[in-house]
């Protein structure tokens, strides 16, 4: 089924996609002329497949559950923000805060992602085939941020238990973020993600970064302060 955003209202399209008739066999949708509209495909909750042909604005596919959303273009701030499950593919570049606070699912960006990619992520897998901007994975709690290109300043600042993998160069690491051993467990984890997403890439080419656990853990030395 095809929708044209130059003819139909965004709220009507979103409402339709958010309330799919589960008895219907129509599971594939296309959206033409997105023209940078915000919140396209936000709040989808069924196992459907949506292709957006063109560039989108903020919060595209935000809060996604189960759906697979492909953007044949660039996306604005906060693509797949707070995603719970499902898949979001971006064929172009992404603006800042891609995958912010995401709980689950996979976000794959073919181009570059801007600043604060994966900020406060909580279980999502974010794969960026290009590079990421500064302060990516800021306060990231859970999940994997996998970067094929380079990372700008302060990668993983104040990170909790999320894992970061970078193939290229890291300009600088943020507070409490350190390089860690690329152990067997991490290699297997990456293998599994790449297999699921049909990505042919050797996990051994990546370096792993994570929390030094000095910032967020309670230190017995501070007991006197309370």
């Amino acid at each position, binding site marked *: 089924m095809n929708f044209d955003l130059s003819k139909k209202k965004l709220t009507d399209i979103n409402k339709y996609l958010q309330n799919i008739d589960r008895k219907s066999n129509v599971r594939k949708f296309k959206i033409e002329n997105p*023209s*940078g*509209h*915000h919140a396209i495909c936000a709040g989808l909750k069924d196992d459907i497949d949506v292709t957006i042909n*063109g*560039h*989108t*604005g*903020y919060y595209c596919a935000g809060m996604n559950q189960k759906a697979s959303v492909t953007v044949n*273009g*660039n996306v*604005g*701030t906060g693509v797949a923000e707070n995603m719970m499950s499902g898949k979001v593919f971006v064929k*172009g*570049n992404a*603006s*800042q805060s891609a995958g912010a606070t995401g709980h689950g699912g996979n976000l794959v960006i073919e181009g*570059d992602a*801007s*600043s604060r990619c994966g900020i406060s992520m909580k279980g999502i897998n974010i794969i960026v085939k290009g590079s990421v*901007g*500064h302060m990516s994975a800021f306060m990231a709690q859970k999940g994997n941020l996998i970067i094929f290109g380079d990372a*700008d300043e302060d990668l993983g600042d104040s990170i909790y238990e999320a894992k970061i993998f970078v193939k290229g160069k890291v300009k600088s690491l943020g507070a409490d973020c350190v390089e860690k051993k690329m152990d067997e467990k991490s290699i297997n984890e990456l293998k599994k993600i790449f297999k699921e997403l049909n990505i042919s890439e050797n996990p051994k080419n990546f370096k792993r970064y994570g929390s030094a656990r000095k910032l967020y853990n309670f230190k017995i030395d501070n007991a006197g302060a309370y």
Partner: protein
Amino acid sequence: MCGIVGIYLKTKKYEKSLGKFLSGMLDNMATRGPDSAGFAIYTKENKNNFKYSICLNNLSVQDFKKKISKYFKKIKIIKYSDHIIMETKDKPKEVIKVIDEKIKEVSIVGYGKSINIFKQTGNPKDVVKKFKLSSFSGTHGIGHTRMATESAITTEGSHPYSTAEDECLVHNGSLSNHNNVRRDLIKKGQEFKSENDTEVAAGYISNKISEGNNLKNTLTSSLKNLDGFYTFIAGTKDGFALLRDEIACKPAVVAETKDYVAVASEFQAMAHLPNVNSAKIFEPKPGVVYNW
């Protein structure tokens, strides 16, 4: 919030459509700044004449003509709603002095050999219509839609700010050290017409350029000297430059084709531009000066 836009034509192909493009960009950014709007559009330089963009406020164009003709003889005036573009051979120093001292009812919003500036309160969609922006041709232009924060909704509080010949600035964000910077610049002889923070940034840029710095170096130095959050687009006769603060608090997106470079707060501002779907689209990095 505020919205900023800019478009620079790399080829002559769309010169006649520049006003139409910029008008659409401002229209689409009305949601980010419904209080006032303004734009600067750069047309072909007239080597002999200066152009003065003047807001008449409540003075009629006939009364303005009567008053100004006492001092300057050869002038050409085109009226656009409550603004006029006055063209004359007379030099800025004399003209500005006369207008500031003898015709206090009006205000000069900008001047130069190629710049035309218009700004007014009201919804951007209405502002671009009343100044007939779509009818302009030119080489580049920048614009602003304002959601007022630190100063009142007035013409003086609207962007762009022009503080020197053919220069102007639009700004999304707010500065925290503008009072200090203003004091320093006043000591150096820079004049200010409002309490607005962006006017200080415009004055800062003009002052640095007058000291012999180029636009790129000037903006680079502002990273050190202007504190706050911002995305700036600074226009000059030859083009414009873009700078985001080092934290990248405020949004910006660039679309580049072989014919033009467009900058805006959001992509939807440029969704109507020709071939934008095949343009190179990217988010400018924080703390890096981009110029065209």
